[in-house]
């Protein structure tokens, strides 16, 4: 494995008496694609919420490139280089496609509101860069989100395009690691195939490290360097796709105890 970029050590989180993440260790190396799988309620999205600071962990340590993320507000974590997409799609629906991707560059730009009101040369230069960056990130998706689409409101997009826009929006924060929460959910087989290839391109051309939650096993098989299986907040298996997919504990978690018994 390459140098570790994201490290979780002994992370736990409970909501009241319900332990959602239990003493979890996880390492994601630089330019690695790691998939997190597990049945519903396994704690996958909570894991993302912990990494991005939406909840603080009850115990344990989360480090990005050696620096602790614990206790930082979400916007600072994103500025440190961990950007996410949402399983339930949380676009800025009333803003245009281009503006969505421009807005997420807030953290890496500086011009204050007074500079904007008088349009200083520096502010205008920065604004041009923001726009160019947004167009470049949208260009990553081929024809889908360019041209006349730039000025369409996000709510007019199809479901698949919304997923793409969320990825573009996260890319524009200039993260080192992308956390993708079910990028293929609700997509048809052709689109699912596309997203599989896209995730590979994100790493190979974009240079991102990727942690992805996915239910579609074809996608997981197609993209993963490594797969981590969670159940009830505990890591039950880790390794290559083949190793994890045939691991009896994983099969049990998905299909119940009798499935393994019958084998």
């Amino acid at each position, binding site marked *: 494995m390459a140098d570790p970029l994201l490290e979780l050590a002994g992370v736990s989180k409970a909501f009241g008496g319900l332990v959602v993440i239990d003493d979890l260790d996880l390492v994601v190396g630089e330019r690695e694609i790691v998939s997190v799988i597990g049945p519903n309620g396994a704690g996958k999205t909570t894991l993302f919420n912990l990494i991005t600071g939406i909840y603080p962990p009850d115990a344990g340590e989360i480090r990005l490139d050696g620096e602790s993320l614990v206790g930082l507000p979400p916007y600072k974590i994103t500025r440190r280089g961990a950007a996410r997409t949402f399983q339930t799609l949380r676009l800025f629906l009333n803003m245009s496609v281009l503006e969505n991707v421009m807005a997420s560059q807030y*953290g890496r730009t500086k011009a204050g509101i007074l500079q904007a009101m008088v349009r200083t040369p520096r502010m205008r230069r920065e604004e041009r860069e923001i726009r160019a960056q947004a167009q470049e990130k949208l260009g990553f998706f081929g024809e889908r989100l360019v041209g006349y689409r730039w000025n369409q409101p996000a709510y007019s997009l199809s479901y698949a395009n919304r997923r793409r826009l969320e990825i573009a929006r996260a890319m524009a924060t200039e993260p080192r690691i992308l956390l993708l929460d079910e990028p293929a959910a609700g997509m048809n087989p052709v689109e699912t195939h596309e997203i599989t290839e896209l995730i590979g391109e994100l790493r190979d051309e974009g240079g991102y490290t990727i942690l992805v939650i996915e239910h579609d096993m074809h996608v997981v098989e197609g993209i993963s360097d490594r797969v981590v299986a969670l159940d009830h907040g505990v890591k039950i298996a880790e390794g290559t796709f083949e190793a994890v997919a045939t691991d009896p504990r994983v099969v049990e978690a998905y299909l119940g105890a009798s499935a393994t018994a019958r084998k």
Partner: protein
Amino acid sequence: MSEVPDTPALPEPDEARIGVDSWVAESDRRRAQRRGPLGLVARGWESSPDSVKLLVFIAFASTLPFWLNEGDLFSFGLFTLIYATLGLGLNVVVGWAGLLDLGYVAFYGIGAYGYALVSSPQYGIHWPAEAAIPAVMAATALLGLLLGFSARRLQGDYLAIVTLFFLQAFLAFTGTANPTVAGVGLTGGPNGIPNVDPLKFFGYELNSTKQQYFFLLGVLAVVAAAFYLANLSRTGRAWRALRDDPLAAEAMSMPVDRLKQLAFVIGAATAGLCGAIFAAIEGAVVSTDFTVSVLITIYAVVILGGLGSIAGVILGAVVINVSSQFLAPQNDHPEIKRWLFYGTVLLLVVLAVKPWYRAMVSLLGAVAFGFAVHAIVAAHAAPSWTSGVAVDAGSASTAKDIAGWVVIPVGHGNFDTLAYIAMVVALISVRNLSGWWRTVALIPTLYLTAVVWENLLAPNPAVTALILFGAMLVILMTSRPQGLLGKPRVEVV
């Protein structure tokens, strides 16, 4: 052997172009469809940049002092500008950042009291405006920062309640508490602070309404331009993003709490600026100028014009202030409100009743129906049933003409109230009818509306203003919930 003609391959007319869906492909054609001079104006207006639109408005507004008298310029001109500037500040907080701030008017009041304290005989301090206005803005901005702390924790209704409490506390403090500071009541209690200095910049005093008007117009232009540019910057985008989804905004590197507070600060400073100018123009400050009804008016300006739209807010201020000034019980043009009323009814019928000939049938039918009813009543009932005169008609002959069409009885007790009830019933039945039944039912309904206006509404201007105002807002908001120039929003799709 015949040659095969070499025909160029024509694209199929409805061939799908890659990446262009049908709606988009059609949009150019649809736009081109609007022909004639109106279409030309519409296209020109659409394609002109916003700076040009602002200049057109400023150019038009600067002609007002040359054809309005002093009193009208004060009530129609100055107050429209104050409402517009106040509305622009509120638009930052509510329209862009999406924070329901009901304490906004308190900052307006604090600005006014602040200016009065440093520029009046109250404490014998007479700061010039170039010092007083920035000081007042800084003070209101600071208070906005403090109140903005509540926006960090509270959302929606909860924030609204806390900020409304802030406004009520301000009113209680200035109007009732009036603590004694240095031997003088700080805020003057219910009497307020009189003899506030006029605006005086570097020794140049703005005395006449005309000077004050041009000064305010300049302020509005600067504020509108500054907010327009702010909206196009990363801060503006961040505000609109957090209004749509604060959690996603936070996850996309925007410090949501700080941005909310910034919106509060900017709104408060704008309100403070307006308050200071208002105090100087009025020459006195009283806490009753900053009540909840003012808050409602400013919200009406912003919502009617269109939340989030600068041009909309300015248009909203024009519509709200001009119509409320015409409807005000004491104004120099009592005859105009009648034509506003009839004009609005006419416009509604023409716009709402389709096709056009049905609208014509209803309108002409109502006129004929009126004369017929009047003739029957005049012939068969006691003379007291038709002996009334129209109120505030402008001229005696107009009053007589109206009384020749509308039945205006004298001394018949509850006739006006009964007519009002009948009108409401008729309106409801018209709403529930369709086709030609509706067209026919509209005839007596329209006539009843005129009867109610002449007998009940015109003689009671104070009540009428509120009823008409409410009706206007309800009709507009049901037909265009996004406001006049606002964009329709979606919350969840």
